[in-house]
């Protein structure tokens, strides 16, 4: 739909209200929409017109492996993040305010700390001779250092760490919105805690889990920094492959085609999320 057409309709109704959007739309239109569309154009014209870039990407086993890795990591990260975040969000939603604010402080501190700083810490922590391996060996759980870095294990640990706040914070909101009376009623009717959890608490928090999980999955699909630093060369993820195609190989055609596949998948999942929870809650959750 054309923005101009929309504006035309609107100006006749509320001229003053719409004027405020002009700078924002100009910025996003000129420096976001146009460059991204130009990239799409490039994916079907560089080096020659046609769909050969997409055919190359989808037909080649090496690239297929990158797509597979990317989806696998995003899926595992999402599942682990949900499992870890749920109990924490649950506690945060009901614990005394003083305790909760300390925990919130820790979450915000980790979230606001520079992304590269946190990834760097994991690079050092997960090394062969790093603290984690040495501690595990000292305790006697293992006698050989575990390969925790330059592989998908390292990527998963680092990504779960980065994504946790994005899952915990929206989940606290949806857990707080549940009326405790429903659970009291369940207990009065004789439901065991397990039954109450399985049949009331979990179903009622499912929309929050779905929204947060989808968000984490989408963010993980396109993540660049953490996989590039904690992953190995043999299990590259999509974002790093795109960056490499453009920056090192200067293969604009393939790079923009890969970028476009990532964009389409992301936007489709985002649309699904909007349908599930609505635009405002999606945006507010971040």
């Amino acid at each position, binding site marked *: 739909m054309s923005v101009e057409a929309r504006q035309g309709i*609107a100006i006749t*109704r509320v001229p003053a209200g719409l004027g405020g959007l002009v700078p924002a739309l100009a910025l996003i239109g000129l420096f976001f929409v146009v460059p991204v569309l130009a990239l799409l154009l490039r994916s079907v014209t560089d080096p020659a017109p046609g769909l050969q870039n997409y055919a190359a990407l989808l037909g080649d086993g090496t690239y297929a492996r990158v797509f597979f890795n990317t989806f696998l990591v995003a899926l595992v990260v999402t599942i682990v993040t949900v499992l870890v975040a749920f109990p924490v969000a649950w506690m945060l939603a009901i614990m005394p305010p003083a305790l909760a604010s300390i925990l919130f402080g820790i979450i*915000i*501190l980790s979230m606001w700390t520079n992304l590269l700083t946190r990834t760097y810490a994991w690079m050092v922590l997960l090394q062969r001779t790093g603290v984690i391996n040495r501690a595990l060996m000292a305790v006697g759980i293992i006698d050989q250092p575990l390969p925790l870095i330059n592989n998908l294990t390292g990527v998963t640990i680092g990504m779960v760490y980065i994504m946790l706040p994005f899952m915990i914070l929206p989940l606290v909101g949806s857990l707080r919105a549940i009326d405790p009376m429903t*659970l009291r009623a369940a207990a009065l009717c004789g439901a065991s805690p397990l039954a109450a959890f399985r049949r009331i608490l979990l179903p009622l928090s499912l929309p929050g889990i779905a929204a947060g999980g989808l968000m984490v999955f989408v963010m993980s699909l396109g993540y660049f920094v953490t996989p590039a630093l904690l992953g190995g060369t043999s299990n590259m993820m999509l974002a790093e492959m795109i*960056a490499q195609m453009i920056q090192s190989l200067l293969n604009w055609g393939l790079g923009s085609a890969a970028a476009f596949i990532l964009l389409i998948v992301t936007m489709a999942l985002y649309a699904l999320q909007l349908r599930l929870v609505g635009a405002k809650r999606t945006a507010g959750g971040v």
Partner: protein
Amino acid sequence: MLLDYDRLGWLKPALLAFTMLVAAFLLLPVIFIVLLSFGSSRWLAFPPPGWTLKWYQELFADPSWIEAALTSARIAAMTAVLAVGIGMLASFALVRGNFGGREILRGLLLTPMVLPVVVFAIAIYAFFLRLGLGGTTVGFVIAHTVLALPFAIIPIATALEGFDKSIEDAAIVCGASPMQAKLRITLPSIRIGIFSAAIFSFLASWDEVVVAIFMASPTLQTLPVKIWGSLRSDLTPVIAAASSLLVALTLALMVATALLRRKLQT
């Protein structure tokens, strides 16, 4: 009684222990990096053989680190000003305007938040190569403002939605011009939203690395690009020192935010 903290029974210690463990997991890298920056081992051994300040000395002796930090701060400050200004105008239109397609326009303006940054990075990189804006401060500020705009619009629009417009109308009835009413009644009332927008936009630029990696030139690089380069070439403990200073800055920003919020709310 699953949602009653005092009546959780045996679940409470189990859940609390798990929560503490996750809190430790979240804090671990942050604390670890600060400890490491004072360790004397070049090879990042932990616990270190001794304690030293030499990585901080090396950091401050190298003008390229300071220059990168200043470049980042300058770009982030300009980004915050632009994003808050443009975001404020847009928020008023989105919240108060009464035109068709409002949700679509809101969605469009928030898209930079959900689009994978790497896609935007190569798109704007190619675009700026053509315009001659690659590797320039203007280029950085424009690209970062696109990315920061959603983070400015969300808190301002939320604050504006929570503000009772009839107070502004009352001021106009009492003789204020619409502009006066906005400046003297509405803006002070939504200042927490504006303040959050400024912080988030600043951080969005200050922390941004993917676009910066593509955009940086030998003469203009931001702090994240400088750290990125060092991480890829040598894992020197100087990065730990630089990182610790960033942690200190984050803490200061958090404390300032908390204090200011308290002050603004009373």
